[in-house]
């Protein structure tokens, strides 16, 4: 499909960016860690549909409940608590997460809400144990500096993440509670983005801004985008949960293409057919399938399914038309059956003869269904259990009627190839009511002022400071500018630690330890600082810093002195250093006498084998030189 002129198409795009924070959880004191090891606790729950304010139930939720739908929640006794299992009232906001969202609001020049309500947003899919997601509006009307202009930020919200699905069974869905309660900042822009490239750039820019706080969690799934897309004449469609930032522009492009294609289809259909012509009067054509070579139908009928055929007036050629690269309108239709009934697929006349159906089969079907060539009729076939098959036909007719109107408003899921598929209707106004277990939170002016004074520098400012003032190498500087360690680094430098070696330890050292299998989550900032201080005071030599930190990470509860003693890393006293050098020199007396200063390299190597981590290399070299000179009488 050709690329389009998106500005001319009237593309409008808004982003909702969700970023996890690496503070403790929002409403309890558990760490925000994702676990891959086996959980040791399993709680089984039923989530009951709750009557709405108007006294009604969500029919789908009620049906699932009555069918005995259960939810199993996996938990860990050491990193999840009774709050996650919905067995204890929540605690007030995590202060660090609250500070972080206020900081983000200030960076976005947004208007802070005076008195914050924590709300309960109803959730019916069991993805939270409480059956609602707690969320709080923190600020409104912000401004993202983008291309020298202000891109409107509608809302900034602090909320809890939901549990993550592990197994989706028919009767039981299994969720893991490690993710539930991790703080999320949600930033929603106004729909003022007009090109796919800009959408991606805005997403990157917001991601960068969040990383400046030093509190953004990193890694797959820690930042998720909902993307709202429409074109002129189209409708707002929400693409839910885009995780691959690199593909974001492509997702926007493909959705704009889809909407443009649907509008073209609409124009074509309006010439051919009226809404009233589309009725779900499907016929049972199972008999035809019996004699057919089509395995799909033959197997289905043997399993007690039936084949329904539906005439779609005027749809010839439309079902086979591409709406996205490699995705035809027929596939699009099938998406609704998949999402709403779990039906694997359908066959339609634009892809026949195929699938073992012969020309004769198709002719027979056409005759039976009363297709008219001159009316450009098409047909679809669905092979399903009785009841479900009829339901499928109703859904198809409904969707085909919408094709006469244009683009249906809906929530769609991104596919790995950049296309997207139907997920569910757009959410209505969220059902929200205040969290009864918490009072409202006043934004304290002094707190806000304190944060305002210490807002993080921009990435550009940081970069300039690192290279100009601190003389960091380019690679280090670039890596540090958006690192979660940046503010810690600035703090250390301010207190007199040497910039380059500090940066190397924070960025490369910790990575190296991790690669060596050390659990670097155990390395606290206090530990890093202690080790750097020891180096600064000359107690610990540079070469031993990382090793000591690694050893400490294995026994984080041990005092520093114990780790130093065990690692034998305490710097040797001058007397000890001299003794070690003299011992090795004595062992090599012969070669020194014979070769003089030329023996230096070999002997130095031997000394370092024994002295590494205890005596700085420069000192060994100095002492050794003197010893050799003393023995050979030469300089």
């Amino acid at each position, binding site marked *: 499909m050709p690329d389009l002129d998106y500005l001319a198409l009237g593309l409008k795009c808004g982003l909702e960016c969700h970023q996890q924070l690496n503070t403790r959880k929002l409403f309890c004191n558990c760490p925000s860690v994702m676990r891959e090891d086996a959980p040791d606790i399993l709680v089984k729950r039923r989530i*009951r549909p709750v009557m709405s304010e*108007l006294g009604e139930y969500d029919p789908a939720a009620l049906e699932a409940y009555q069918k005995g739908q259960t939810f199993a929640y996996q938990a860990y006794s050491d990193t999840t608590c009774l709050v996650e299992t919905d*067995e204890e009232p929540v605690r007030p906001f995590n202060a660090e997460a609250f500070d972080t969202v206020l900081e983000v609001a200030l960076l976005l020049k947004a208007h802070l809400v005076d*008195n914050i309500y924590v709300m309960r947003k109803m959730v019916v899919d069991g993805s939270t*144990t409480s059956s609602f997601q707690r969320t*709080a*509006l923190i600020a409104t009307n912000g401004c993202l500096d983008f291309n020298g202009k202000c891109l409107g930020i509608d809302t900034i919200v602090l909320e809890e993440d939901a549990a993550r699905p592990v197994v989706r069974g028919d009767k039981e869905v299994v969720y893991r509670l490690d993710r539930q309660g991790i703080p999320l900042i949600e930033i929603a822009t106004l729909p003022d983005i007009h090109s796919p490239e800009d959408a991606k750039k805005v997403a990157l820019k917001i991601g960068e801004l969040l990383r400046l706080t030093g509190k953004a969690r990193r890694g797959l799934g820690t930042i998720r985008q909902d993307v709202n897309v429409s074109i002129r004449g189209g409708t707002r469609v929400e693409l839910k949960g885009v995780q691959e930032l690199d593909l974001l522009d492509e997702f926007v492009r493909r959705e704009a293409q889809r909407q443009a294609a649907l509008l073209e289809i609409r124009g074509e259909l309006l010439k051919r057919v009226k809404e009233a012509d589309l009725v779900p009067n499907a016929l049972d054509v199972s008999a035809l399938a019996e004699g057919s070579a089509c395995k799909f139908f033959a197997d289905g009928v043997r399993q007690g399914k039936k084949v329904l055929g539906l005439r779609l007036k005027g749809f010839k050629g439309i079902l086979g038309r591409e709406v996205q690269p490699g995705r035809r309108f027929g596939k699009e239709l099938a998406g609704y059956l998949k999402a709403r009934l779990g039906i694997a697929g359908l066959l339609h006349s634009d892809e026949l003869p195929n699938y073992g159906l012969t020309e004769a089969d198709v002719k027979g079907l056409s005759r039976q269904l009363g297709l008219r060539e001159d009316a450009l009729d098409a047909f679809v076939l669905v092979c399903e259990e009785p009841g479900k098959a009829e339901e499928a036909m109703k859904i198809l007719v409904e969707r085909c009627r919408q094709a006469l109107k244009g683009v249906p408003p809906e929530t769609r899921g991104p596919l790995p190839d950049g296309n997207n598929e139907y997920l569910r209707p757009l959410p209505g106004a969220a059902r*929200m*009511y205040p969290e009864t277990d918490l009072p*409202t939170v006043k934004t304290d002016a002094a707190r806000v002022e304190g944060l305002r004074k210490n807002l993080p520098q921009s990435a550009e400012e940081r970069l300039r400071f690192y290279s100009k003032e601190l003389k960091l190498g380019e690679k280090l500087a670039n890596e540090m500018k958006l690192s979660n360690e940046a503010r810690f680094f600035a703090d250390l430098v301010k207190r007199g630690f040497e910039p380059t070696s500090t940066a190397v330890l924070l960025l490369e050292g910790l990575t190296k330890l991790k690669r060596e299998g050390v659990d670097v989550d155990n390395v606290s900032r206090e530990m890093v600082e202690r080790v750097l201080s020891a180096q600064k005071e000359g107690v610990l030599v540079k070469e031993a810093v990382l090793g000591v930190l690694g050893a400490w990470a294995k026994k984080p509860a041990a005092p520093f002195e114990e780790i130093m003693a065990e690692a034998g890393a305490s710097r040797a006293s001058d007397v000890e250093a001299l003794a070690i050098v003299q011992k090795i020199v004595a062992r090599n007396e012969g070669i020194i006498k014979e070769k003089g200063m030329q023996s230096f390299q070999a002997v130095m190597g031997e000394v370092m084998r024994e002295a590494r981590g205890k005596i700085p290399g420069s000192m060994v070299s100095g002492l050794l030189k003197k010893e050799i000179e003393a023995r050979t009488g030469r300089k």
Partner: protein
Amino acid sequence: MKADYRELLRKSGVQEGDFVELAKNGQSFRGHVLPSADPETLSLKLHTGYNMGVRVEAGMELKKTGEPSAKAGVKSQALKMDVSLPKIVVLHTGGTIASRVNYSTGGVYASFSTEDLIAMFPELTRVANFEPRHVANLMSEDMRFSHYKLMVQAIQAAIRDGAKGIILGHGTDTLTYTSAALSFALENPPVPVLLVGSQRSSDRGSSDAAINLLCAAEFIKQTDFAGVAICMHETSDDQACVVLPGTKARKMHTSRRDAFKAVNDQPIARVHFNERRVEYLKKDYPRVDKKKPFTVKDGFEEKVGLLKSHPNMHPEEILFYLEHGFKGLVVEGTGMGHMPTNTPENLPNYEALKKLIASGCVVVMTAQCLYGRVHPYVYTNLRRLSEIGVVFAEDLLPETAFVKLAWLLGNFKREEAVKKVPENLRGEITASSRIDCFEPE
């Protein structure tokens, strides 16, 4: 004068619920006005569903632009009686189980009509015909003995009206006090009376209310048990409830669904929720004794106290009950029933206790360990207490002892009451201590 949002509303001709446009410092907000607990804050419900509070300041402008949103109300369901199903009377006394949430304010209120109950839990209609009746509406910590009398009367009326059983919705805090009180007040009741509470309010999909209610109803429908019991979650899972003996249960956790445990005893039964199956865990549970009449004694002595023994006790703590004319006092002793009465510093406590008993006050000793029995003889101190007339109450739970003592003193002469304290009347004292009843969580 402090800013007050109500003043702003009045000046602007706006009422709570109206849709308004608010201008403040160049920002504008639109939403419905909500009642606010803090007068300095104007609360709005925005179209997105979020609530936000705006600090009231001079220069704020408020303009009404729309009417209140449609009044939220429960859709009433026409009730159909199914003559093949038994009748269960549901008595409401308040607490979380009866509470509903007001979605606009977040406030919690109580509701009791049959229509509301069935609208909230439509599945109930498949189990029985329900008849809710209002007894009281209060959080259970506010219960007084007078409420026990009201409940007893309501239960008598329900039995007269042919109920197969009674479900009593109750706040969980003092639920076991009430279950003990009803156990003593009702002698040989012909039907099961199940106290049901909930630890998570029913505005949440994760509420335990529905399962507790449905399990109680299933149990009533299927059982030949007659007496007072409690029906609550067995574990944190929504899989089963347990029916606990009314005089041997205790709330052991502030917030978990499975907070209620049998102490020094076993649950009577387990009700499997999915299968709606009753599994008995006890063989000798109370059944109706047709040879004996159903009698009611609902007197409760007002002046009964409960005192926890602790280190560094002062005699004033004991003499208080003497000075104020208390007729009974239950002590939660340490260990097997100790109080600090032995050393020179603690002798005044002993003297105080002696005086209290001499005044006619019945002093009953229970164990603050909860699990296990008290014993009047093992240690000298125990003997000293029993010598002066402290009544040792076997494995009676302190709260049950408190209720029992009030009931005994409200219905019997002092001597008879003293005699009955260590006797088992309603399953509150076990004949021998079971080996398999110690698993505190």
